[in-house]
């Protein structure tokens, strides 16, 4: 829930002033920038995203560190799955990673440990 995902604004979205196309680890999705409307970031800026909304602008350095932090927390797969799911691209998916809270890519996840 506290998951804050760093992404780079790559494109405006025609006809939707509050949306931007944001890229996270190679995945592109539309993110709502309504919470940053007082100081709208520009294309090329980095933002921290939470549940499909940009929460704050960050530096590129902070974005790289945040990505590293997510990997240290074992949350990279969860973060990428979340971003992939924006725009209902993955609607209704019930893969292991988002229902157990344990990342299936984690080498010490439950099943591998019990195997």
């Amino acid at each position, binding site marked *: *829930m*506290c*998951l*804050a995902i760093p992404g780079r604004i790559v494109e405006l979205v025609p006809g939707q002033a509050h949306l931007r196309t944001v890229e996270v680890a190679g995945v592109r999705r539309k993110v*709502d920038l*309504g*919470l*940053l*409307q*007082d100081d709208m970031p520009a294309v090329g800026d980095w933002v*921290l995203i*939470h*549940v*499909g*909304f940009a*929460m*704050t602008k*960050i*530096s590129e350095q*902070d974005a790289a*560190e945040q990505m*590293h*932090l997510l990997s*240290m*927390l*074992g*949350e990279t797969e*969860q973060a990428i799955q*979340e*971003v992939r*799911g*924006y*725009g*209902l691209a*993955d*609607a*209704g*998916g*019930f893969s292991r990673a*988002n*229902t*157990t*809270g*344990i990342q299936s890519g984690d080498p*010490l996840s*439950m099943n591998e*440990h019990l195997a």
Partner: protein
Amino acid sequence: MRYVDEFRNPELITKASDEIHRLAGSGRHYRIMEVCGGHTHAIYRFGLKDILPSNIELIHGPGCPVCVLPMGRIDDGLTVATNSNVVFAAFGDMMRVPGTDGSPLEHKARGTDVRIVYSPADALQLARMNPGKHVMFFAIGFETTAPSTALTLMRAKGEGVRNFSVFCNHVTIVPAIRAILDSPDMRLDGFIGPGHVSTVIGCRPYEWIARNEGKPVVTSGFEPLDLLQSIVMLLRQLQAGEARVENQYKRAVPWEGNRAALKAMAEVFQLRPYFEWRGLGFISQSALKIRDEYAEWDAERRFPIPGTRVTDPKAAQCGEVLKGVLKPPQCKLFGKECTPERPIGALMVSTEGSCAAYYNYELRKAAAMVTRIGSVA
């Protein structure tokens, strides 16, 4: 057990750790609460307790919105979906939370239309795409998430999307901290303040903790170094007999918070007179409800809500663990009847729940030990 050199900035971490040991050396026992479930998760994941001296005790706070949601609210939401032929849309971490009659996932298996969404905006999109169905977004979360729900409701109203509503379980963090401070069984010296909640509400809302209760608060980032630095800052204040709010997470938290986010919340939500929190009981002015201007998008006004109140299974000690009175392994069910695979309470389901965090940490420690023994043998 994590070794310091596995972290980035090992020299800075060693420096912070040394400073903590030096400051804490007096032998006084320090009790510091980290409020936010994300911090609990990070503390366990990074094995920070192993780096800290034994006279610093980290107490887990109630900042896990899935964990503090009473079971009756899940039951109510699922009842609406089942009886009123409504799509129940929620975040992934809600899906395995036990209700009286099964989790959302289990209800889905029995025919209720339950969908995962990763954003409230996507729940609204589901409604736009399915004009023949009603989509109810089961909203949970603290102030980090509430502004996004608020904006989504503003967009729904602006566009006139009528087949959409929100079942609102948003809660606010400060009353929970107040309830813990008021609790007779809790003695605390200071707080590691929430990270991303503070991105929205800023640091001002914690000033009364310092001023009225005399406890320092340091809002912290989530890196191992952030948390250790925050503990250094707390110890320095405690040693000097000070109590102030400090911001360690300056790169993401503005002191005044996010004005647009606060404005959106004020436009759409108002405080409920009281709300029931799992483990903490009824707390006044601690939760958000949807304003009259948005009544049409309020699931509690669109649909009959049973108002179910459920007591947790007697043996489960979720409430005491949530308040920090018990540590996860002190609950009688921990690791036996209650595991992440078969959770009894939400603290074992949610990634931010202290029980799940502790359980997975213990697993990792045990596995690492096995690996070490195996490699030495």
